[in-house]
Each structure stands twice: as C-alpha cells, then as structure tokens.
C-alpha cells in the first residue's frame, strides 16, 4: 500500500468514526492517533524549545500543551462508568477504561484537524489538575499510576520522553512565569519526577536542557535519531531562538539575549536568593533518582 493510499483509507475511517472532522487526511489522524511523540516534563524545563525543534521538521505537526484535555477529559469519562449506555463496539462497564481512551482520541481528532504530516507531537506538561480530583486516592504513587493508565490507554503507541533541566532553575522560572510561591513550584517539579519515576513510566529518553544550550547540534541529532526522524536543517536552526523566556515574549533570536546566552540559560547566581527552607532532602533524592534513571548526574 502506498503512503497516499494508506492516507486515503485513513480518511475514510476518520469520516466514519469521527464524522465532524473535516475529512481530508487529518493530523493527528486515525492511522497515527495512538502514536504521538509525548514530551512529559514540568513546564519551564525547555519543553517549548523541544517542541519548536520538532515543529520545524516537515514530518511532524505539534499540537501544544494538552494535559488538561487528555487527563481532564479522561477523568470526566471515568466518572460516567456504569451510568451511561454500554458501547456496543467496546463493551460496558468492564471495558470502560478502553472506552475512555477511545473518546479522548476522538476529541483529539476533532480538535486538531490539520493535514499532511505523518507524525504528531504533544506536550502534556506538568502534573495534571485532574490528579488532584481523584476520589479516595491519596498516595502520590497511586495518582501516578492513574496518570500512566490514562496516557497509555489513550495513546498506547506513544513515544514518551522528557527533558531535564536543573530543578532550581525550573523552580525559579516557574515561580516567575506563573506567579506562584517557590514552594509550590518545587512541589510541582518533585511531583512530575514522581510521575516519571513511577514503575509504570515507560520514558526511556531524556533530552538534556544543558546540552541543548551548550552543544545544540549534537543534542538535536540525538533527539532526531531517537525519534527516527531525518536530520532536517530546520530543527537545528530552531535552537537559534529562545521560546517564551517570559510571558508574551516568544521566539526571540538568541543574538538578542546575550545575557541569557552568556550564563547558558542558568540562574545559578539567583539560587541563593530562593527560599528553600521547605525543600526536603528526600524530595531532592527523588530528583537525583530521576536524573540517574537517564544516566545524568544532578547535584544541588
């Protein structure tokens, strides 16, 4: 089957299955909807840089920050288990998990009716708000198990990866960007690490923010190789800009941010100004373990 024929078949399926979608070949489409590239990390870690590297690739479309859509809607669907009509195609109460995944995929197909590219990428960053609404689930490892069930049921063929940036830099940047206390930002970073460290996590590749800054070409090559994408020049060029350094500031050429470049986008000199009185060593250990999982060394 030629690629064109495969897309035509996919379009017919999409027409039958998600009929509201305008039916040329949608992207994501019925053929690749289960197989996104998913960047799982805490915001302010370089996820926009990563997304823009992939956005520059002609084979990839990026759909943005999808965590509320994915997890919020999955949870909404879980809440109707046993109180709605069974789905004759999937089953009733006993197959409800699959039904939730199917419905979230349908929502993505309806929401992103782009066309053309064979791969798609999303960044469901941060611990989703829906995890805070789980009834009767108190331990974070159980919440993390729910996270992976929702993600893997919806996108069973997803290539999941993360990006590592020094947690203190992430906390400082998060605190400034979202206007939250450093402790809250720290908790978010630690919780994201708990999710990534969970036994159900299948994240096997971590982008290094430090190397994307210091030796971008080599790191971009490593990313593209892992994702089985051709080394397109646009991806390398994408690292010449800075994405969302602050609110309302987007895609600024690095040449205009000499100060940031000189300090390799690190805020090390500001670390001492951060209130760390409520940061616990066992939380630092969680972060060290996360970095070690990917062969990286983290020191505080």
């Amino acid at each position: 089957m030629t690629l064109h024929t495969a897309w035509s078949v996919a379009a017919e399926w999409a027409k039958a299955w998600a009929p509201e979608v305008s039916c040329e070949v949608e992207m994501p489409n019925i053929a690749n909807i289960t197989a996104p590239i998913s960047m799982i990390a805490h915001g302010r870690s370089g996820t926009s840089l990563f997304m823009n590297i992939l956005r520059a690739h002609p084979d990839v479309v990026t759909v943005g920050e999808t965590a509320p859509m994915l997890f919020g809607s999955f949870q909404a669907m879980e809440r109707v288990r046993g109180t709605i009509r069974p789905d004759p195609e999937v089953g009733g109460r006993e197959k409800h998990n699959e039904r939730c995944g199917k419905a979230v995929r349908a929502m993505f197909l309806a929401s992103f009716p782009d066309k053309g590219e064979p791969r798609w990428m999303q960044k469901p960053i941060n611990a989703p708000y829906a995890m805070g609404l789980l009834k009767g689930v108190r331990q974070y490892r159980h919440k993390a198990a729910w996270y992976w069930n929702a993600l893997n049921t919806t996108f069973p063929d997803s290539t999941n990866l993360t990006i590592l940036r020094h947690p203190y830099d992430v906390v400082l940047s998060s605190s400034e960007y979202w206007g939250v206390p450093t402790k809250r930002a720290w908790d978010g970073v630690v919780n994201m690490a708990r999710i990534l460290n969970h036994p159900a996590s299948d994240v096997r590749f971590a982008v290094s923010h430090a190397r994307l800054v210091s030796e971008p070409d080599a790191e971009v090559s490593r990313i593209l190789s892992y994702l089985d994408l051709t080394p397109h020049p646009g991806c390398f060029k994408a690292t010449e800009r800075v994405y969302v350094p602050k609110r309302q500031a987007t895609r600024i050429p690095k040449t205009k941010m000499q100060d940031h470049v000189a300090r390799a986008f690190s805020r090390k000199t500001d670390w001492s100004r951060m209130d760390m009185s409520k940061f616990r060593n066992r939380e630092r250990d969680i972060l060290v373990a996360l970095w070690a999982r990917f062969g990286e060394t983290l020191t505080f």
Partner: protein
Amino acid sequence: MPNTDNITRPFTLVSFGRSGTSLVHNILAAHPDVEGCGETQPLIFGTWEGTRRVGGVVRMDQSLPAGTAHETRCAKSVRAVFLSMFPDDGTKHWVHKPINVPFTINQQQRRFPKRFDAHAKDYWKVIGGAFPDGKVITVLRHPYDVALSATRYWENPIDRIWRSIVNMAQILSQDSAPVSLALRHHVLATDPTPEISRLLDHLGLDHHPACFEAAEKVYVSKPGSGRRPKSEMTDHTRRAFSHRAEWDQLDMSSFTDQDRQILINMWAKYGEPLNF
C-alpha cells in the same frame, strides 16, 4: 443514538438526582425513536473544562474560521466525545440526563463561594454550546422527598445534599435556562398517563404504548435495585412515592428560609406551587 445529524439536538433532562429522572429517562428511552444515553453530566462538563483549559496553548483548529471563540472548540470536543461514546445505531432521537450540579461547578464554588450565579450562567452556556438545537426538560419533586431519598442513596451529609438541591434550583432559575417543560413527579406517580402524554406531545413524539408501560416500573429505588414492577411496591405506591411521613426527621439546620425561597421561586417559574 447521537450521530452527525442529531448530535446538536438531544432531549436533555436537567434536574437533581432522586427526583424521578430515571423514570422520565426510561419513559423516553422506551420509545422506538429514542435512545437513552444515561447520566452524562461529567462527560459534558469535564470535557468542556478540559478543553477550556487549553485555550491559547494548543494548536489552532484549522477547520474553524479565524477568530472563532474557544468555546466553539469546547463544544466541538464535547460532541466528538459523545459521538465516540455512543456509536450511532440509526435511532432518530436521543435523550440524556446530565443530572446534579456538575463537579466542575462544585470546584468553582469551593474556590469562589459567592459567585454561584456566574457558575449557574456557565452551566447553560455549556449545555447550549454543546447542544444548541436540543430540547431541555426538567422534573420537579418535593425537595424534602428529594433530600430524604438522596441522603439514603448517596449517604452524603445532609448539609451537602441541601446545598446541591438549592444550587440545582439556582441553575434552573436562571433567565437563560432554556427549559421548556417541567414534569411533576407526584403526577407521574399518581396519574402518569396525562403527564406522559404531555411529555411526548412536547417533544413531538407519538404516543407509543411502551412509554406508558415504562411508568409501571420503579427505577433504582435504592442502589443496585434496578427495575421493579410497581405492583411489587405497594407501600411506595400507596404513599405516591412520597416520604412525607418522615419529613420531620430531616435535619434542616443548614436549610435556610432563603433556600426555601429559591426553591419556591424556581417551581413558580415553571408554573408549579411548592409548599413546605
């Protein structure tokens, strides 16, 4: 079932649970031209909220004209979920019952307790956005009976039950509420035929015998009890499914005169007197 032709025009039953919503749902679902989808409130409001939260941080929907409000996209998401959840079997109409105050509004209310009116307006924005061509109906049952039944069914604290009943009434009281028919539970219990006829006429459905037969059963009288013939529940039938004899056992310490007035006004809006 929902399909691309009828997805925007369901019959939507909005009420507080334990008000007779299963009875009304089953009366309609018994009609050969109507499929019943069940309790869809979390599906609608959770999907809407999940999509609302990604406004501005996800890729544009290129099938929508530039400048389209994000709410249009939220509505489209909700419909996509319904089309996926309930595969089409060719039935002409569909009914669902998004009962109770949505969990998304409860969250908002916890954060902003004095802004319930704004949350209530949002409720109708969501229902109207997702299903702009639908018909919305409700069913009225005496709040004391609802409170007693709800307390036993969900085993929630009574103050929470009162709050939910009153909040649902505030939603139904909104000027923007497109509710076009209020059924009366006590009439459905005592003399169902004319009330069912009124319902079917309102929705443009023929008087199919199965709809009337559906009223001969009792639905979910308690958790897990399913459908039981009325003839087996003579005690309930004799008292017209009212708990009046137990009203004095209700803890009303958190149910204020202001709350009573909200409920009286809501019933009056639909032409029904309510006495406490």
